[in-house]
């Protein structure tokens, strides 16, 4: 297979969904109902094709690429077409060990989401929009051009906006607007940062892939190379002050997306109102766009500024970690609790980044991946709860284990995975983060008692998960209380497609918990490469190092 294979990964789902939507738009109501099933099958097949391609890439069937040993700022499957020549904009795609796990995760979650929400209403338009969402997400991860990156970054908003607006809960209008305005405003700041970065490039030395009119380029590998050269000469790329300003501008966009406290308030609203499929992709992949963007742009370009802002990031991460967990304790809405737990887990990623230890960065990368498998399962459980019980209140029912053993088991498994049970995927990332934090504290000469905070958060996390489980699944004994929203109808268990999706997600949670090296090796290798290629040459003897 040639290098062009990463092009259809983006283009195919987008084009397919546009074709399907155009096809549906002419149909009337009854025709749409009849079309729903074939379209659902078609999108499932399309997304499975994508999964086969990315899995084939992993097993070196396509392209014969080993995902380990790719040195910093080198990309596999790199392809570049000139797009707007006068401005130096290219359609350039490529992957490295940072983006490949995210691309695989997206292609993996797409069919799982389709299966888990098999019976979603308005299927004829719902499934193509899911497919478009997947295409846009893959586009974010594979694009190697600032302009293209921004276009896909914003493009992910449109399908998600519709998923929330059309298939969402009662308060969906408010939620979708809030979601859009928050993330759009943040990314406008990011866009200004990108353009400023563009114009601060030195046009005197001719750059590769530069625009004929401006003499500057949007090409990420070129800019990264340029920044690396400047940074390792002992200078700050673009100068100290502007580097700090640009770092802050770019980080703002990514922190809102992540989301970190205090920019997190859009997330619970969006999640509670979003349909199950939207939540699964939102929590599974879309939040990780923030962490991915941090690694790809500000960290790779401005390591000095990262060191400068290290403490600030650490504090934001710690606050997110602790705040998210404590707020969870007070939630009565199941989905809101899960949403806040996402905030807490994203705090883990931020703390991992802020330690500036190879272990911490590997932990952040693995957390992105593990949370990308566990959180869709959490939201699938919430979705099933809502779908079958018409309520999301934790206090709505007791003794679920008796009525709905499948749902109760899935819930128990997902909750356990999320609270970091050993041998499940989440545990690996958390333990790595703790080790990295310990290294950091030791290297800085700080008291290791700072570890108590995050350690207590583990206990709090266990507390809110176990408490909610105890109230819904086990309490009540023989005198179970079916939810009042069912109005006396028999309590159903989850449907077969949902069972299948739960099984797939649970299976992979165990696989990546028992054999984390499948994904961890390439992530670990990527952090080694970025430390050898960027951090050590630039920062030299930075604080300790593991």
């Amino acid at each position: 297979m040639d290098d062009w294979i990463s092009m259809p990964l983006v283009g195919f789902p987008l084009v397919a969904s546009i074709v399907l939507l155009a096809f549906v738009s002419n149909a009337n109501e009854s025709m749409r109902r009849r079309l729903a099933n074939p379209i659902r099958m078609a999108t499932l097949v399309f997304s499975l094709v994508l999964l086969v391609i990315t899995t084939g890439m992993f097993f070196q069937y396509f392209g014969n690429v080993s995902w380990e040993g790719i040195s910093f700022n080198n990309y596999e499957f790199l392809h570049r077409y000139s797009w707007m020549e006068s401005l130096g904009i290219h359609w350039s795609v490529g992957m490295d060990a940072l983006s490949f796990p995210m691309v695989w995760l997206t292609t993996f979650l797409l069919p799982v989401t389709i299966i888990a929400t098999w019976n979603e209403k308005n299927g004829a338009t719902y499934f193509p929009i899911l497919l478009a969402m997947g295409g846009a997400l893959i586009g974010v991860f594979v694009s190697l051009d600032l302009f293209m990156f921004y276009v896909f970054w914003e493009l992910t908003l449109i399908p998600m906006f519709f998923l929330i607006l059309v298939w969402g809960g009662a308060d969906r209008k408010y939620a979708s607007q809030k979601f859009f305005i928050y993330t759009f405003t943040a990314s406008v700041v990011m866009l200004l940062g990108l353009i400023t970065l563009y114009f601060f490039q030195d046009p005197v030395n001719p750059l590769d892939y530069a625009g004929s009119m401006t003499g500057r380029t949007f090409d990420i590998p070129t800019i990264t190379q340029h920044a690396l050269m400047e940074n390792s000469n002992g200078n700050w790329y673009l100068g100290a002050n502007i580097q700090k300003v640009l770092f802050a501008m770019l980080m703002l966009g990514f922190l809102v997306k992540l989301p970190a406290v205090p920019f997190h308030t859009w997330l619970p609203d969006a999640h509670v109102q979003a349909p199950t499929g939207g939540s699964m992709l939102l929590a599974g992949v879309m939040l990780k766009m923030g962490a991915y963007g941090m690694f790809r742009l500000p960290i790779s370009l401005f390591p000095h500024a990262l060191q400068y802002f290290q403490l600030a990031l650490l504090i934001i991460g710690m606050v997110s970690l602790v705040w998210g967990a404590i707020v969870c304790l007070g939630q009565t809405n199941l989905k809101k609790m899960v949403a806040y737990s996402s905030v807490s887990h994203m705090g883990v990623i931020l703390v991992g980044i802020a330690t500036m230890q190879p272990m911490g960065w590997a932990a952040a990368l693995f957390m992105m991946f593990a949370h990308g498998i566990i959180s869709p399962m959490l939201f699938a459980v919430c979705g099933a709860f809502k779908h079958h019980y018409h309520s999301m209140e934790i206090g709505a029912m007791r003794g679920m284990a008796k009525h709905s053993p499948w749902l109760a088991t899935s819930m128990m498994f997902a909750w356990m995975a999320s609270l970091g049970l050993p041998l499940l995927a989440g545990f690996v990332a958390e333990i790595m983060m703790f080790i990295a934090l310990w290294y950091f504290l030791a290297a800085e000469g700080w008291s290791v008692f700072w570890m108590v905070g995050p350690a207590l958060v583990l206990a709090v996390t266990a507390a809110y998960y176990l408490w909610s489980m105890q109230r819904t699944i086990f309490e009540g004994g023989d005198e179970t209380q079916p939810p009042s929203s069912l109005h006396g109808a028999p309590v159903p268990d989850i449907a077969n497609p949902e069972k299948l999706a739960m099984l797939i997600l649970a299976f992979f949670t165990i696989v990546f918990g028992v054999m984390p090296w499948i994904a961890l090796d390439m992530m670990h290798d990527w952090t080694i490469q970025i430390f050898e290629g960027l951090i050590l040459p630039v920062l030299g003897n930075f604080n300790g190092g593991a």
Partner: protein
Amino acid sequence: MSEITTIEPFTEGFVEALLPELILFTGMLLLILVPNLGKGTFRIPGTQLRLPWLLGGTRFKFSSDPRLPAWIASITLGSAFLNVLYVFSQGLERVLIVSESGKELLLINGFSRIFELIFFGALALAAFSSMNRLQVKGIGSKIPENELYNNRRQADFYILMVTCALGMSVVALAQDLFVLFIGLELASFSTYVLVAFLKESKVGVESGMKYFIVGSVASGVGLYGLSMLYLWAGSLQFSVLAATFAVSGTTALPLIGIGFVLVGFGFKVSAAPFHFAAPDAYAGAMSPVAGVLATASKAMGMLGLVRMLLIVAAPESSDGSAVWLVCLGAMAAVTMTWGNLAALGSDNPKRMLAYSSVAHAGYMLAALTAVGAWNWDAAVAGDASAAAVAVMTALLFHLVVLVAFKLGAFLVLSILESEGGGSRLSSLGGLAKREPLLAVAMFIFMISLAGVPPMAGFLSKLLVIMGIVRVAVGDMGAEISDGGIYALGDHALGLVACLAYGHQLSHFRLLLSSCRRCDVL
């Protein structure tokens, strides 16, 4: 770039050079004549002989068709548009038309022809789309064909459209303040009447009156400014004015003159604080007319500003910024903030689009301001004129794509209007259910207006912001790299760009209501 050919009126090459305008003129004559064709006869005095002369009397079937004027106007404007396109494809020749005494009157070049493309394109679309919409009962009623206005009333409407195009193209070509003003007033008076065309409805008359009064005051102030410039320079020629301005442009008289002219054109682009009539005019006029006001008329105002500020009152050297820089910058910032905030609070979709059009004006003014800020560090920002060219390109591109999505949004509203809704946001509810095609179109227009990639609106805004940032970076780059990020505060241009972009969110309200209830619940 080819040399400029100089010709006198009605000599060789005149017809080729002004073919689009002559097409419009012919179309106007046809619009007057054709709907009046009939079996009218003329009796030779003193005899019983009646000679048929075809004007008046019982009209023929084809000439009494109410749709005839619309067809004539659309074909006229469309062929003028195509003619300009054809000229572009053949390689444009630059022609300067001078009077017998050597005064420059009209200049035909790529810049003016691009603007003519905008004018003719917008007006042709508006004429074609209002074909079935001029109804006796005014806005908001769906009635059969035989209740359209009769074709004499229709002919009035379309004659005004064509004269509007003619006036605008004269503004585009003018090289002389007098010619400029003639063209401006021709276009303005046409739009005043077009806005008030629905005289049977209260709203139409009210909005027309408001628009006329505010507009004529603004024109008067502008004319006063032009006369001051004449008094000071002793000439109405742009070339003479520019040369004189370079020598003694910072004296009081020309500055006051330029300021007054700014008022006149500020009204045309509906910049704050001269925008107050715009929302009323847009809301009272028919949607296609409102669309013309928001695109073609605005482009004409921008063109006038470019001519006056960049060609006449441009700073001569690259080490001084333009005298109008602060004034225009403040106007831009106020305009875009006011427009966007006011748009958030309006419940009538046309008013909302009107305020968003105010915001867009502020946005383009910011680009114009950036061109005026010449005193940047050439070592950081590169060639000054190249940066100015980039900003101007962005401005032109923005104006061109604005025709597509702004006029498009108004045309969607015009369809809703003729179905009886369209004056409240709530009447857009469930549009996706009723008219999927319209809803998709409206969605695309709205996200394009809001500047979401991958729509054209994003690209044009990006280009404008890039131009502004480039100028701002050139301006402050040296200071920042020397230390002191507080230099950022001195140069608000970057913030201005941020404002322009971030505040476009109001469009989402419109979008939301059009998508609401599209699920089956």
